[in-house]
């Protein structure tokens, strides 16, 4: 997918929110959806189970309008977190320009986080993408929970962020860090896109 199209002057970014089940990926999207003016967002497509778990994926298109003469669109996706939906995850990852890894800050979820991160790596590899080259931002969600239940951002950095990518502490439910994350990943993606479409 050519994402910066100089002929049609379009920029399209596909950003995938990845992470273990119940880490708050869809919450991120919901929060963003709520903050984007009507005229700029498409329908938030959410295929959820009865218990509100993402069954297939969420999809939120955002139109940022003309930026520097480019009509700019963001497509935000989430993947189902549960282990057994790996085929879907792989599908959604296809053609992603950037990945937000939404980690669960709860101490007891650390293994799930690690497992999901490894899963991300292997799924990317299936598409021939090296995780070291794709724009990636880590979001440590649920930092609003009581201190004794969670790991600090620094601890999580130690545990998960061994590649030194940007990381953001977040409370997606209340919106803290959500846009910061989006900004972070956008910046990485746009810079990569700009460089990648060398004439």
């Amino acid at each position, binding site marked *: 997918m050519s994402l910066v199209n100089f002929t049609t*002057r379009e920029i399209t970014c596909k950003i995938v929110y990845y992470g273990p089940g119940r880490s708050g990926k869809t919450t991120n999207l919901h929060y963003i959806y709520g*903050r984007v003016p009507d005229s700029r967002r498409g329908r938030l497509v959410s295929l959820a189970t009865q218990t509100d778990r993402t069954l297939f994926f969420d999809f939120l298109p955002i139109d*940022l309008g*003309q930026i*520097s003469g480019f009509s700019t669109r963001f497509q935000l996706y989430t993947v189902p977190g549960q282990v057994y939906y790996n085929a879907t995850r792989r599908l959604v990852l296809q053609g992603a320009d950037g990945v937000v890894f939404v980690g669960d800050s709860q101490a007891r979820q650390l293994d799930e986080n690690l497992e999901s991160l490894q899963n991300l790596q292997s799924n990317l590899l299936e598409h021939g993408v090296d995780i070291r080259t794709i724009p990636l931002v880590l979001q440590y969600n649920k930092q609003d929970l009581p201190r004794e239940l969670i790991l600090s951002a620094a601890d999580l950095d130690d545990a998960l962020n061994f590649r030194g990518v940007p990381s953001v502490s977040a409370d997606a439910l209340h919106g803290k860090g959500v*846009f910061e994350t989006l900004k972070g990943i*956008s910046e990485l993606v746009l810079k990569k*896109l700009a460089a990648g479409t060398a004439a």
Partner: protein
Amino acid sequence: MTSALNPKYSFDTFVVGAANRLAVTAGRTVAENPGAAYNPLFIYSGSGLGKTHLLMAVGHAAKKAAPALNIEYLTLDEYVEAFHAAIAAGQGDAFRRRFQNVDVLLVDDVQFLTNRKEMQSELLRLTEALQVGGHQIVLTSDRPPPEIADLDERLISRLSGGLVVDIGAPDYETRVAILRRKAEERGAKFEPGVLETVAGAESGNVRELMGALNRLVAFQAVNDRSINAETAKQLLGIGSEGADGGKAAARQGAGPGARGPGDEFGDFLADVTVTVGKAVEAWRARVGEAVLRWEGEGYRTRRLEALLERDTPSAVDEVIASFTQDVERLKELEAEVAELDPQAAGQSVFRDPERLGEAEEVATKVRDGAAPPPGPSAAFPLAAYAVGPSNEVAVGAARAVLKQPGKKYNPLVLVGKSGLGKTHLLNAIGLELARGKRAVVACLSTQAFVDELIAAIDGDRVDWWRARYRRATALLLDDIHLIAGKERTQEELFNLFNLLQDKERQLVFTAPAPPHALPGLEERIASRLAGGLVAEITEPDREVKRAVLERLLGQQNASPDPALVDYLADRPAESVRGLVGELQRVVGAAAAQDGPLTAGLAREVLEGQAPRDSRRSAGFRTSGIVVSSLGGIKSREKIVWDWSDVADRVIEEFR
């Protein structure tokens, strides 16, 4: 039937922004090199974004660069009309011929080709003809060729075959720049923030922007008070939250009031805008422009392209600047080398800034190889040249040459018998020319010129030899008649002559007779020599002789006896050299007798008995029979001098 180019629509008045930079660059390239770079150039954009302006700007720029160019601007409708009129008048062929002879054809609004089959085939034919003839064609349309409905496939591919560029809607910054410039043109002044507000309102086209500006200008003029940003907003019906709010949020420069609901999204948008602006457009555009430009001039642009491949290149402008500097240096080197050795200049190293070091080496090598050609002798200064009626034409010509080397008399041929001072004058001209900055004066005898060429042929370095002389800013050859019969030298001289004359470099020759009277000279050389000024130096007149004598006597520190000078100057002398010979004999005699230099002595020496040796040096009196030191046939004079006493007496008595 052709519209004139509107003088207002030039590149100078065209506001360049990210959205139109590519189109403008392409336009400039085309204007600088019509028919060479992008042919055809197809520019498309929505209405009111500057297509016509750009098209006319290309016309203006091309005209400015080469005033002789035949440039036609017309809209497609005008073209169609003209065509129909021509057909109706039975002048279809004349019409075609006329347009095929246009050097730069600018056609506006070609989208109206839809449903005009015969015009399409006409345009196809014209485009082909123009391209074949190396003529430039620039077209504009409101959509790219494939999207023009019902357009012939061949025409689509033909029109898309050059460069198809679009002009996007101007971004916020460009809109502000346009508004500022237009306001300035109209002499209108606005409070800070007003123009920014107008620019902040989403209007996809410059004409609408102009409309909004006009309304503000009119309002200010009518109410005679300046308006502020808020009034402007009300006046133009913008800025209200809601439908416009979201859009305005994208223009974060539009002021704090323009931010849409949800600060977070606004912030995000602002952030992305900055990122896109930084990452996608600004530096990319600058680099792209530089690549486009230098590639167009035939330089390798790997260094710049590498920039585009990097994630976040640092110091883009520095890289571009250093690249440009390198290219300029390459240009200098190439020009220098081309002068010294035209063959070496074509090397690819001069087109690749990455190989600047190699280019420098090549240049050094060429420079070392090309020692300067022999220069004029310092023994013949112009100041020491005696002037009189017998040579004033030649001296006058020499002065004219020195005033305007290469422009007035080129070549200058000094004609006269041996010993009249041609060589002196030639060297004097050379010395004066050599005073010029960066002057390389080749001044030598034709014999030396021939010998050098022979040595060069022998050493298989004729190219080097040629390069040496080709870089000369002036070529002065003594005794050009010696080239007679030397075919190769004549051939080389012929080429060198043409080359130097083309570059307006001075050529001076000396010869014993006018060019056409010189035997053994090829007609092409003789006619070229005769083509400048042939100035004759005749036998020295009294004035010249006096001047020479006074100078020589002055040099000997002898107080010249006026009677002596008069006596010597009055004696007939065929040449200056002869005169000098006579004087030397007198001086020699005086030295031998350890007596003063007097007219009496001179008379005695020159008319009475004289030493044999000095007699011999007076070559001008020889009959043309070679004087051999081994005896044998002597000259008539010589034979007489053997009985000098008798002879002198006879002459004395005869007088």
